[in-house]
């Protein structure tokens, strides 16, 4: 069952080349590739199709993750919702961190995460599902566990843009969010819901992400998530609050995610309450800082004006 492995670590690059040569024709056919149908446990975490192309390989400029829906479903949904204009091929997204081959393998392996965790087994099963050799995950760096985690982060983050219309139309609980703060909360909650399928495995994933060599990439993903949420929420701050908002949202999100891993309440109600409390606290703290700043600024300019009225040339 197991294909011959290459034991020499120095030959890893050569292995990758060897693997990719036979793989390329197999995974880059001109015919349409349909990803395997979603497993039941992950179906709640899948996101709506956000591009019209059925796979990343037919769309050279956009290696967003493949949707787990079938193409026919996509066409139906797009006909139902012609207003979804967030995505345009004339404005390609910046490319993701994955090559098309990696994306194909990871999207297949992702379906096995609820059962097998972010592990080499899930990757091997995913590879088998799409007709590749069990050893194919060797194209991924460091055995692929972190690549699979990163795929989850990347996939869920890029899904948010496709869900934003539904969220802002008030289709989620709690009605339509109106202010930027409410939208941030709704988007952060939607992103946390994206963890539902893998929540039993998420503590392991957090442990892997906390390994020193993965910390920079993990933090970058967190920063990109905060940026995405604030952008989609319509925040247009272009002063130092750009930084403070992203930093505080990143902290709150990471804390809420940690809370979620131990949350057993139905529908993660406690996590939602936790998220709301933290965001309210941040808003109050921000308001207090702003008020102090205004007070200082007002008094400083008043003092200068008093001096000017006394004839001091300043």
């Amino acid at each position: 069952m197991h294909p011959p492995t290459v034991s020499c670590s120095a030959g890893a690059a050569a292995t990758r080349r060897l693997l990719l040569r036979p793989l390329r024709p197999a995974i880059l056919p001109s015919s349409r590739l349909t990803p395997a149908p979603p497993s039941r446990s992950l179906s709640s975490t899948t996101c709506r199709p956000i591009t019209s192309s059925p796979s990343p390989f037919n769309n050279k400029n956009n290696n967003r993750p493949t949707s787990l829906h079938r193409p026919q479903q996509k066409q139906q949904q797009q006909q139902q919702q012609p207003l979804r204009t967030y995505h345009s091929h004339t404005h390609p997204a910046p490319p993701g961190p994955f090559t098309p081959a990696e994306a194909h393998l990871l999207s297949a392996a992702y379906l096995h995460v609820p059962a097998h965790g972010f592990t080499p087994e899930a990757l091997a099963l995913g590879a088998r599902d799409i007709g590749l050799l069990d050893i194919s995950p060797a194209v991924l760096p460091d055995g692929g566990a972190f690549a699979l985690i990163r795929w989850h982060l990347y996939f869920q983050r890029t899904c948010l843009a496709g869900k934003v219309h539904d969220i802002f139309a008030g289709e989620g609980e709690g009605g339509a969010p109106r202010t930027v703060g409410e939208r941030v909360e709704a988007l952060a909650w939607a992103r946390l819901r994206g963890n539902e399928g893998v929540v039993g495995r998420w503590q392991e994933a957090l442990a892997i992400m906390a390994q020193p060599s993965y910390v920079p990439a993990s933090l970058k993903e967190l920063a990109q998530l905060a940026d995405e949420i604030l952008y989609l929420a319509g925040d247009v701050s272009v002063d130092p609050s750009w930084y403070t908002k992203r930093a505080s949202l990143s902290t709150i999100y990471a804390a809420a995610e940690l809370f979620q891993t131990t949350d057993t309440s139905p529908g993660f109600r406690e996590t939602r309450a936790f998220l709301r409390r933290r965001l309210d606290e941040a808003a109050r703290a921000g308001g207090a800082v702003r008020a102090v700043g205004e007070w200082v600024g007002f008094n400083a300019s008043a003092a200068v004006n008093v001096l000017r009225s006394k004839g001091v040339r300043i």
Partner: protein
Amino acid sequence: MASARPMMQPLRHCSRGLLAQAQPTHAARARFLSSNPSLSALRVNQAGELAATLIYTAQTPPVVAREPHLRPLMQHMYDQEAGHLATFNDLIAKHRVRPTALYPLWSVLATGLGWTTAVMGREAAMACTEAVETEIGGHYNAQIRQLLEMVTEWEAEGYDVGDEFRDLITTLRRIRDEELEHLDHAVEHDAQKAQPHWLLTGVIRAGCRGAIWVSERV
């Protein structure tokens, strides 16, 4: 401010897509990636206009206290700079460009520069304007030249350049012309009589170049 953005606009990929207006191809994407410095140029422009508004804000009271007839001129220059700042604020929010991390530092330095030169007298204040606007004019000119080169190249390759990109060039040209108009006003109002003119303008221009260099990076 937040509600000003229409929700059904192509929200997501107008982002970062400023330079990806041309037809999506591998070449265009490669160019988009390699020309990210042009997005950092928007950050520099915003920082520059922020500094300019603060300089005029700080200069106006001391200058006007001595020479009340300069009030309309200072107001006019301030209004134009505030308009430029609003333009770039919109642009960097739209294209998801990070604002400069040294925003507070630039604010303090610009206010300090404006106030110091204004207290030194009208000539020094005008010399400050002259130096700043000379650097800024050159900076915008270099940017416009770079964008025009990109447009020429794209057109030669048969890509559609897109209205957004052309509008950007038009906006930059208008702003550059207004900055150079400020330069003319400054020279008309005895900027060259400041003592010592060479030292004042030299220091300020070097400071501007350094600030541009830093803002491109952080």
